[in-house]
């Protein structure tokens, strides 16, 4: 089994543990787009401190691991800024309209057999797959 897959399983378990702590501890569903979006549109004003604490740790822990492990953590983000801006806008609008992303609908939704979570995941994976095929293999942009 390739080491990347084992890292994937271990990292995945940590993500699941994070969601379990958020659910069993704070009684909420751990969804990154909801936690960020609630701060942006003001719907999460009452819990702003918790949200900022979550996001600060989400930013700082990988930064520390990056320095401590010395592991190359290149994100390989495209240098085409038109693509990056279009992608960011689509992710921002789409996740908030669908009320969830990979963590909320994917990890937390599928694990409770939520039909909404499963349907959302099917649609964003299909749309993502078609987008990669179109823009990589047909248009050659990404």
């Amino acid at each position, binding site marked *: 089994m390739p080491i990347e897959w084992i890292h994937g399983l271990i*990292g995945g378990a940590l993500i699941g543990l994070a969601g379990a702590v958020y659910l069993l501890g704070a009684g909420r569903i751990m969804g990154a787009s909801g936690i*960020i979006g609630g701060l942006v549109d003001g719907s999460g004003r009452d819990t702003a401190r918790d949200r900022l604490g979550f996001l600060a740790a989400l*930013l700082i822990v990988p930064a520390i691991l990056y320095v401590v492990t010395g592991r190359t953590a290149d994100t390989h983000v495209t240098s085409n800024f038109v693509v990056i801006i279009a992608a960011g806008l689509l992710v921002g609008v789409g996740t908030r*309209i*669908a009320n969830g992303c990979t963590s909320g609908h994917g990890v937390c939704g599928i694990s409770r057999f939520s039909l909404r979570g499963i349907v*959302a995941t099917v649609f964003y994976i299909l749309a993502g797959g078609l987008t*990669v095929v179109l823009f990589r293999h047909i248009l050659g942009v990404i």
Partner: protein
Amino acid sequence: MRFMLSVLSGGLFGAGLFVSGMTDTTKVQGWLDVFGAWDPTLAFVMGGAIIPMMIAWQLTRGRTPLVGGSFPAPPQHKIGHRLVLGSVLFGMGWGLAGLCPGPSVASLSYGGAGGLVFMAAMLVGMGAAPTIGARIDRIAEAS
């Protein structure tokens, strides 16, 4: 208490995204690229995450959250135009850049200018979403 639990959860989430390699956009696009060099890593991450979460959902039965209050209501089964259209738009952006909201925060310190620009655009999109969502609702009602 709720604050500390949020910090703990965010930290674990960040560690998981870093360890799993999910802040590397080539791994995410590799998973989506079924006609290229397909990379199944994302499936292992999802599987690894869903198992502890399934146990967590089981543990919510007959209990209350540590900080008090109540657990989220049982899942709704209403599939509306917002869920489908929003997920399609999200998927398109996810495919284009290989980033979704969690990893975009987790990789902000080492993601360079591209990561910062993505974050800025995502925040603008999230700010515009209520207005766009309301317009979509009107179109859906009219049709």
